């Protein structure tokens, strides 16, 4: 096949979009948009599940797929990202995810991570990560979506690179802390740089930890359109992001 056909094959069966056009067009919402990196983990999880589910539904593709995924909507379609998922799940990825599950119980209580096993880490292929997978877990508590994701970038963070400087942080308020263990970014949208309204609380909080060993840990709180998240929440989120259990070891 030629390049053009190969490229078209590469994008056949895209997963459902994780954004909604009406949401993007909602009055007043557009100018308060935050960098995509902060768009909730919940949608990410939903798409990831749809991807895996869709893959299971593809005829004759992966008979070894666990049956638990078969309940996914038939409309879910496989993607190349999903295809990046090894056809028979390598046990090491699952083993890492299982080990990470136990870390949820050690996160600060104020993050309300379920400890009853109802929330588990999942993984999906991620281009550029080493190994090329990202692990993530998400849960809801009183309307707030909490999320933790982790992957290994394979590189040490560059102290000379300041993500808080334009144009990186975009509309968000951003603080950066450099320590021996790595670089930590605190981001929130309480004071939107485009929106003249300055809220006392945020609707989105994010702590990004670029560990010196190459791991990138992302902890988020997302309250949708409700500016109810005190900025002090980032203290617990930082503790979570620095949790020594959030590694990719088996």
């Amino acid at each position, binding site marked *: *096949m*030629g*390049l*053009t056909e*190969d*490229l078209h*094959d*590469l*994008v056949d069966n*895209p*997963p459902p*979009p*994780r*954004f909604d*056009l009406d949401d*993007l*067009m909602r009055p007043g919402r*557009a*100018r308060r*948009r935050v*960098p*995509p*990196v902060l*768009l909730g983990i919940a949608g*990410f999880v939903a*798409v990831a599940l749809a991807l895996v589910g869709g893959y299971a539904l593809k005829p004759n*593709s*992966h008979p*070894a797929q666990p049956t638990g995924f078969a309940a996914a909507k038939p409309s879910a379609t496989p*993607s*190349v*990202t999903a*295809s*990046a*998922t*090894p*056809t*028979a*799940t*390598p046990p*090491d990825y699952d083993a890492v995810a299982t080990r990470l599950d136990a870390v949820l119980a050690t996160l600060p209580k104020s993050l309300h991570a379920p400890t009853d096993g109802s929330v588990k880490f999942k993984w999906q*292929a*991620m*281009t*550029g*990560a*080493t*190994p*090329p*997978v990202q692990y993530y877990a998400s849960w809801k508590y009183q309307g707030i979506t909490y999320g933790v994701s982790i992957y290994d*970038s*394979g*590189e040490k963070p*560059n102290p000379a*690179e300041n*993500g808080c400087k334009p*144009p*990186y942080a975009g509309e968000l308020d951003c603080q950066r802390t450099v320590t021996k263990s790595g670089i930590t970014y605190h981001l929130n949208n309480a004071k939107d740089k485009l929106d003249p309204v300055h809220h006392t609380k945020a609707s989105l909080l994010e702590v990004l930890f*670029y560990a010196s060993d190459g791991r*990138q840990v992302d902890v988020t709180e997302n309250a949708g359109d409700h500016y109810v998240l005190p900025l002090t929440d980032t203290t617990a989120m930082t503790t979570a992001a620095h949790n020594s259990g959030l590694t990719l070891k088996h």
Partner: protein
Amino acid sequence: MDDDSFREFIGVRLDPLRRTAYLMSGDWHAADDVVSTAVTKIYQDWRRISQMENLDAYVRRTLVNTWLMERRRPWRRERSVPDLPPVAGQRADDQMVNDRLSLLKHLVALPPRQRAVVVLRFYCDLSVEQTAQVLDCSTGTVKSQAARALVTLRAAMIDVPDLVEG
């Protein structure tokens, strides 16, 4: 009324835009981020934009520029993938999957502008002139970027066309 015309215009283009963004970013998650950002930008200025003659070129340019801007963020910094994910059992079905992954891997390893040229020329099927318009560069730049990209892909055993002239 503006909303209706925007919805009508962008509604039928969302899917192609997502696919284009995926080929540039190598990740559906990132592709959706790029598309949603680009669509928001277009929506914010739709009244003016909708009067343009070549709307599709403008939309593509917005998409490409948004992607180029997004990838400059430190937390978006792309890194090459040293190896494909391990595959537990190699079957005939898997070969096709791995071929696609191989193409994607080599595609996302291209420098951004080369990657954009490849996607616009060989996926979007734009001419050299149209590609230059989207990327806001000369046709000569498009040709040279495409040539370099194809040399790289060919070296990786990707089946690429011999001629890149538009």
